[in-house]
């Protein structure tokens, strides 16, 4: 019995030592970050924007698109002289867009004094789990991909350049109403899809469109025939899809290849992924868009040129929003100061942020919703493998 106890204590101590060593390593890791952050606060020649994004995991493809846009943005800012003479840096944190990881990493970002703003994450769940920490630290959380209506509700340090779905879906419904009176609608079952579709439905009813079939679908469903068969059989003038690229391609491919549907299709997404996946089935896809590589907006045209030079491919919506987020923040800081306070002040006061979406060339923030003020969008049609402006 005593002998047993001895062994257990010895092994326990071993365990405790191991755990201690682990903790010590982690503490060191933190301290180095923390230390360099505090010491580098005012004297340093660079400032940083922290990025929470899915580098790995199921959303990694979006993470990749974000990184392309963000890297290009920061390169451009530094080529143009940085922010207030300082070099702008990005500090990337892979979160897999998992709230458990964003909540954990947020205080580390907040404690790093060289960080003047945070951008990301991909999903609103992951983003919003981190927002309260940034709110307390008085650090602006700029959720450039978070269009869900409640995103900025955490507090006055949470902002997004995403336009509201109310404005966007109104114009979307108007586009559909031009050619269709009777539609079938499918939308992705998540926070964004749900609220976007609710807005669309409201506006569509106002315009006298009758919705003869509707269903949501789960993001990981691989066969959508069971909802698209009744959609087709309702004999609509058009099928409207509200969702992302891969699922949009699945919808249009199923409709055209499997179910022989030949009517109009609204939806998809302005990404190369959608264009490639839908191929010839996607031709004629119509949608309202904030951005297209062929945009006539001069800011957007400049961005497209730079993006093509850097990556030898056309940019999509995710590249554009992530790129613009860095440009916005740098532009703002250059008008105020390259500090956390400067970022917040800029979002509140600057009224001519360069605008990359729709046709306007500048935008300001709506101070009560902390979102981009209303804007106009482009009417697009997929022709010859490109989203082209139509009327």
């Amino acid at each position, binding site marked *: 019995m005593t002998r047993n106890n001895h062994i257990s204590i010895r092994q326990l101590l071993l365990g405790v030592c191991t755990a201690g060593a682990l903790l010590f390593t982690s503490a060191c890791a933190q301290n180095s970050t923390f230390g360099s952050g505090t010491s580098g606060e005012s004297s340093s020649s660079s400032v940083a924007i922290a990025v929470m994004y899915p580098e790995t995991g199921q959303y990694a493809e979006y993470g990749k698109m974000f990184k392309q846009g963000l890297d290009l943005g920061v390169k451009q800012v530094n080529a143009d002289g940085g922010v207030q003479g300082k070099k702008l840096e990005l500090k990337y944190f892979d979160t897999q867009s998992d709230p*458990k990881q964003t909540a954990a990493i947020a205080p580390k970002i907040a404690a790093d004094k060289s960080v003047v703003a945070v951008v990301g994450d991909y999903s*609103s769940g992951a983003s919003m*789990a981190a927002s*309260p920490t940034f709110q307390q630290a008085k650090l602006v959380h700029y959720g450039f991909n978070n269009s869900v209506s409640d995103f900025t509700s955490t507090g006055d340090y949470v902002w997004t350049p995403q336009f509201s779905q109310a404005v966007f879906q109104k114009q979307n419904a108007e586009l559909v109403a031009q050619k269709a009176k009777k539609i079938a609608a499918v939308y992705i079952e998540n926070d964004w899809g749900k609220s976007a579709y609710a807005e669309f439905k409201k506006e569509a009813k106002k315009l006298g469109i009758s919705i003869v079939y509707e*269903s949501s679908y789960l993001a990981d469903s691989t*066969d959508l025939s069971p909802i698209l068969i009744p959609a087709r059989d309702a004999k609509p003038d058009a099928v409207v899809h509200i969702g992302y690229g891969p699922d949009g391609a699945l919808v249009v491919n199923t409709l055209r290849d499997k179910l022989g549907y030949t009517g109009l299709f609204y939806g998809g997404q302005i990404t190369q992924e959608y264009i*490639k996946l839908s191929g010839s089935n996607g031709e004629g896809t119509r949608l309202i868009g904030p951005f297209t590589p062929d945009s006539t907006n001069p800011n957007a045209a400049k961005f497209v040129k730079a993006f093509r030079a850097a990556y030898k491919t056309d940019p999509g919506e995710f590249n554009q929003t992530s790129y613009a987020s860095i440009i916005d923040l740098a532009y703002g800081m250059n008008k105020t100061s390259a500090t956390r306070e400067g970022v917040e002040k800029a979002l509140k006061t600057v009224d001519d942020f360069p605008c990359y979406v729709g046709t306007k060339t500048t935008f300001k923030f709506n101070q009560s919703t902390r979102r981009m003020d209303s804007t106009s969008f482009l009417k697009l049609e997929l022709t010859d493998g490109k989203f082209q402006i139509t009327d």
Partner: protein
Amino acid sequence: MVDTLITGFMHGNAYAIVALGMSLIFGVSNVANFAHAAVFGMGMMIAWWLGSVLGLGIVPTIILVALITGLIGLLLNTLVISPLQNRPSVAALLATIGVGMILDNTSQMIFGTETRSFPELLPSHNIEFLGVRIGTSDIVMLLLTVAIMASMAAFLKYGKMGQAIRATAQDTQAAKQVGIPVKRIQNISFVIASAFAGVAGIFVGMFNSNVSPTSGSSVGMTAFIAATIGGLGSMPGAVVGGLTLGIVEALGVYAFGDGAHDLITFGALIIILLVRPNGLFGKKQVLHEPMTGSFSGGAKPYRIPRWLGPILIVAALVAPFLATDYFSSVGIQIMIYAMAAMGLTMVSGSAGQVALGQAGPIALGAYTSAILVGQLHASFLVGVLCGGLVAAIFSSIITFPVWKLSGHYIAIATIGVGSITVALIRVFEPITKGSLGITGIPFPQLFGFTLFTPQLQYVLVLTFLLIELLVITKIRKSHLGKTIESIGNDPVASESIGIRTSAYKALAFAIAAFFAGIAGALMAHQYTYIDPSMFPFATSSLVLTIAVLGGLSSPVGTILGAIVLVGAPELLRFMSGGRIIVYGVLLILIIIFRPQGLFAKKE
């Protein structure tokens, strides 16, 4: 209607062809191989590469894919499954989840993350048939499914090798004694099954038309359910299960929309298992030892000496005030997951039942407290306690029928129950706001004081954790605890002395669900936002893994398990892209080299 049936049948065939391999491996090695889905996904991506980048035709693609995935199967068996041969089945189950993680991430690194179109190796939409277009590829897939099923069934029944495989499955020791080379037999069956998985990937790739490195796992989970519905280990069962599930899903989704998809899939699983506890074609299982077997039986938790306990507690209390906020926030995540897992030392440790659906009670606790405190303005403590109670009551009710099942069927049924819970939360929109999620959940508030710093929240969560530790330890030592343990050690003996095993299993589960609910509530008040997508199967498997790694017989061990499993991704942050792969390898190594758990010694 007929067209819906046809597409359902074809989709079901895609499940069936994947389910065949899963059932084969289960029949031979008694392993619920969760990595099979990843092997299948890998086959799909390799075929994409061969077909579109190299432009190979269907025949060379099939041959090469079968060779490569067969090799993966061989490695899987020799490196991971074989070393776990004489261990309880849950060890292999968790290890295969780790392997799946590694394979999926490797595939993402090799092939890139985007969704892409699968090459049309055979025409896919050339036959017009009662309102839908199917393709030569679909017909070939169907023929292939039937051929594999028939040949495997005949081979197992009449072939010499097949008989050896079956003998090995029935009694490994006896098979060894009559001179069957068991190792080689198991290797061969892993190779065959994995090669089938790869070939299935080719045809399902053509069926889905769009593929990405992660599409394997979503089809894989459904295929696993199909194999279970059909009866694990039965070849005809896998096919009938796949087709049944495909048709039920198609009809259900046709009627209720795809938003109810999970509810239909997992609902079908539970209902079929209630009627046929061993699946449609499964034979009555011989009473195996509990899946968690010697994880608890052969191990004894370390004891913390009396003098050390208070020191550790004080150290844990003081640490956040000496370290950074980052320490506190990581600490909070670790402790919340430790809380969710600790109760499993009763269910999986004492009662020997594998529960793979803890995301269910966690979500229930989170939603209850979010609604009570955030919308009805109840006090924080009331919200959290009600979170625990609702989780315990609701989860116990919908899990109750599951305890009549045995072995792997319980593990898979609990996956179903966890998913159904989350699916119901999604559907009950008026109360839960469904997919929109609940925002603005207040930070914890005690006696009018808001705990808004990470340090204070850390102390709060630590307090809850210590209370749970005390309660669980007391229960384990009590008469009740011993009764529950007797069920795990010998279910037959305990039945024969008049213990109602189902009732006690349900009670143990209710206790675990109560604390998981509290953990969920604390999570909600820390994130301040929740939506149904935050409670996936990965949460359930993480919670079980924490309990197993910590040592199923040791509540303190779960804390250590959580430090490793929740803390490691943070510590490995410096490695960037490869960190999830390293994490998976770490997980497998611990399972292999510390079978009794981190905080227990072998007896």
